[in-house]
């Protein structure tokens, strides 16, 4: 099978020549569409013009387009990773290479990640090789409660990473926000309200713009530019990702809708979401939750359990996996797989296999404003798909091919090059530095 794939691949390489989208049919694969349904055996996926055009057992590939025999492989939509910092840092502890936070900046909500995403970042390339094709990436709160405007990016090699700029705003209204607002949740809440009221005034809806900035000591908590940047948030034209963990904090966030009815809220973190799951469901607010938090890491996560996502889902909450809770985003599939295993444990609540895949594909895509486009194999969706050498949620599996917008992607990276260099330690002829 592997040989067949290689053969077809070389033909494809000859045919394509450029990085244009390829028309391709993958046949005889186990196909999981990412919409929550169970995988389909012996199915076909057809991509044409960079888009998915057909998926299913009944699909017959057009003989005019190249066919890849997917026997023994699994095909899924490209995974959708939220919330990440992919593309905005190289080495975490090397501050010059790290644009994830800007505590010395006078700006917060106005920060915009779109112009600074580096598509050649090793982390983008490494995570592409792990089957992640799109991600929500953002700067985080540092100087103030607002983290800035995150973007939806693709992880392809065309040098144009932005799928949607300024897709969402980030605010921390939990412990972290309290610290940044001067030391208390109360301060974070009034800062939040002041900022949104100012944005309302700037729109001209209500009140008169009052402040040019809010400062604390020599730190700017809200500048005029930040208030401007919050206009689409208060108008409901830009999603607001709210980081909170504690049940009480979640309730307070849900209540914001009475004050600012147009807010398009997304809860991020929500370790104690299961305690207020029915209220979240009733409010219709989706959640991006850490899959495997099981410890009272802080006093706002006392009730953390891996059953959180399953319990919220069972209560009717739309919930995807927030990968910022993982050691690195390439653990996305592992986290989803754990929730499938959890479903077998007495007293625990996990997800079905199909739901687990959806929690790292279509659901986070939908929550991020990419419904029907990303994270799903259905007609009209981006031609983002991954061919895996086994069950994609299993820790032993890995992608063998990754397509983004219908273009097969290079998977080599710094790590794979090191692996090949050190496959053996033979330096009898030349130093390792010549082995490349």
């Amino acid at each position, binding site marked *: 099978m592997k040989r067949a794939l290689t053969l077809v691949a070389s033909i494809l390489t000859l045919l394509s020549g450029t990085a244009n989208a390829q028309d391709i049919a993958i046949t005889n694969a186990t196909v999981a569409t990412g919409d929550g349904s169970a995988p389909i055996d012996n199915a076909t996926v057809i991509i044409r013009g960079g888009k998915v055009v057909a998926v299913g057992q009944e699909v017959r590939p057009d003989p005019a387009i190249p066919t890849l025999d997917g026997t023994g492989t699994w095909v899924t939509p490209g995974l959708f990773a939220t919330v990440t910092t992919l593309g905005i840092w*190289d*080495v*975490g*502890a*090397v501050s010059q290479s790290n644009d994830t936070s800007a505590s010395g900046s006078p700006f917060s909500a106005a920060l915009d990640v779109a112009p600074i995403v580096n598509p050649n970042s*090793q*982390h983008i390339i490494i995570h592409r090789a792990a089957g992640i094709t799109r991600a929500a990436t953002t700067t985080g709160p540092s100087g103030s409660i607002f983290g800035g405007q995150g973007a939806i990016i693709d992880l392809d090699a065309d040098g144009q990473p932005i799928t949607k700029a300024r897709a969402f705003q980030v605010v921390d209204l939990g412990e972290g926000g309290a610290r940044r607002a001067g030391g208390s949740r109360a301060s974070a809440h009034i800062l939040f309200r002041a900022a949104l009221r100012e944005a309302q005034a700037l729109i001209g809806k209500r009140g008169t713009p009052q402040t040019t900035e809010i400062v604390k000591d020599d730190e700017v908590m809200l500048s005029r530019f930040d208030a401007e940047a919050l206009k689409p948030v208060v108008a409901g034209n830009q999603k607001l990702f709210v980081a909170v963990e504690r*049940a009480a904090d979640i309730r307070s966030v849900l209540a914001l809708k009475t004050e600012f009815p147009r807010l398009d809220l997304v809860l991020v973190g929500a370790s*104690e979401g299961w*305690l207020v799951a029915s209220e979240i469901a009733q409010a219709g607010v989706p959640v991006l939750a850490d899959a*495997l*938090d*099981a*410890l*009272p*890491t*802080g*006093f706002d*996560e*006392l*009730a*953390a*359990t*891996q*059953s959180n996502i399953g319990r919220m889902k069972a209560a009717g909450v739309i919930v995807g996996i927030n990968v910022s809770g993982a*050691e*690195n985003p*390439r*653990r996305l599939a*592992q986290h989803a*797989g*754990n929730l*499938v*295993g*959890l479903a*077998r*444990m*007495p*007293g*625990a609540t996990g997800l079905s296999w199909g739901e687990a895949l959806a929690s790292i594909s279509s659901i986070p895509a939908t929550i991020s404003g990419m419904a029907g486009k990303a994270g799903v194999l259905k007609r009209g969706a981006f031609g983002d798909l991954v061919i895996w*050498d086994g069950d994609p*949620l*299993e*820790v*032993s*599996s*890995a992608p063998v091919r990754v397509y983004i917008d219908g273009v097969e992607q290079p998977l080599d990276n*710094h*790590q794979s090059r*090191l*692996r090949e260099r*050190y*496959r053996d*330690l033979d330096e009898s002829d030349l130093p*390792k530095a010549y082995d490349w």
Partner: protein
Amino acid sequence: MNCAARLMLIAGSALALAACTTTDGSESGPEVQSAASQAPAFSLPPTPADPYPSTYKPYPGVETLIIPTTVFDGAGGRIDNGWVHFRDGKIVAVGGPTTMPPDVPNVIDGVDKFVTPGIIDIHSHLGDYPSPQVAAHSDGNEATSPTTPDVWTEHSVWPQDPGFSRALANGGVTSLQILPGSANLMGGRAVTLKNVYSRTVQGMKFPGAPYGFKMACGENPKRVYGGRGRKPSTRMGNFAVNRQTWLDARAYAEDDNPKRDLAKETLVGVLKGELLVHNHCYRADEMALVMDMAKEMGYRVTAFHHAVESYKIGDLLRENDVCSAIWADWYGFKMEAYDGILENAALLQNAGACVVIHSDSPNDIQRLNQEAAKAQAAGKRMGIEISDAQVIAWITLNAARAMGIAEMTGSLEPGKMADVVLWNGDPLSVYSRPEKVWVDGALLFDALDPKRRPVSDFELGQPGEGDVK
């Protein structure tokens, strides 16, 4: 409180004779001096060699036979359709389909399940960086001097860390080494625990386990101390401070009647081979230098921890018989972790060097089996086949050996502690979890019994008490 007031408060007690310092610093009261001079020469009791001894005692267990099941024995062996028998806290026998199992009343059906030895984490900060992770709990780094061989982790471990329960129930962890952090070149003594809650840390200490000694290479010490304008601020500074500290310890060892020095006692213990060196070190070139330093000074490095570049020097590590305690996939968070690759463990195994998969994390300690499986699979994709049974050894016997407890646990060998995990499926699958965990033959976690899971003091009366976690 002034002297007079204190004397009044304690009047009538023998303590009234205690010296009371006046404002000029002299001792007051002639009767005090005469009392002291009339007392017989005061002789101190000798200090014990083991001043904070383990008080761990195995909990009662029931003689048990698990049959039929798939057994990974921890030593690289696998038995299909096998069985495991333990009694009085010890492994009695492990057998296969052709060996007659004993007649035991308590039989556990292991069909479609797997048995491994208890998982062992060689690198944990449970207890010294416990949950909740508040500053008041930050007890892992005595970051006030680049060398603090005098500190002992056990004096920092909070035995109520909720993390111990997660490691047991989700991870099947039965033994673990708690280390000081890596701010210092020499961080202090590490302690090995049984993963059994106790009111005291002594009640968790693994009986007979040697102490570990934590050292750290590279970025952390030079950053912490260089940032304060003091030595070391460079990697060469790291080595200079280490070497001088070892030389001073050697002089101390040769002194016939030295004034007791806690730091040097620990270092002499290392030189004598009584303490095992666990050296945080990422880069291959630094590990090579450390191995030379160890030879220069006359000690042995047992394991390099976080050794993300070990794959570059598998030959050297094999020749020096040094284990690499590593993650499967951590990389990139700091400069010295930039060259971390998924195939590290497999390349090391292939080179004949010792591999241990560690966590250094209250989260990953709950899934060491999955981390090991990831590392195995990465090897397989590059053509290095490592058996499932060998991969289980990475998180059991190999860890036990590097912690000096392999004679007692780490494999299902007759006579060893009955530290046993029954998994509800293949432990190298993401879908499997511990169903039962025994420590010294005592059933301390049972997924089928809601009360047979530990709940730390901290979690009582709090949201989620006793929940599945």
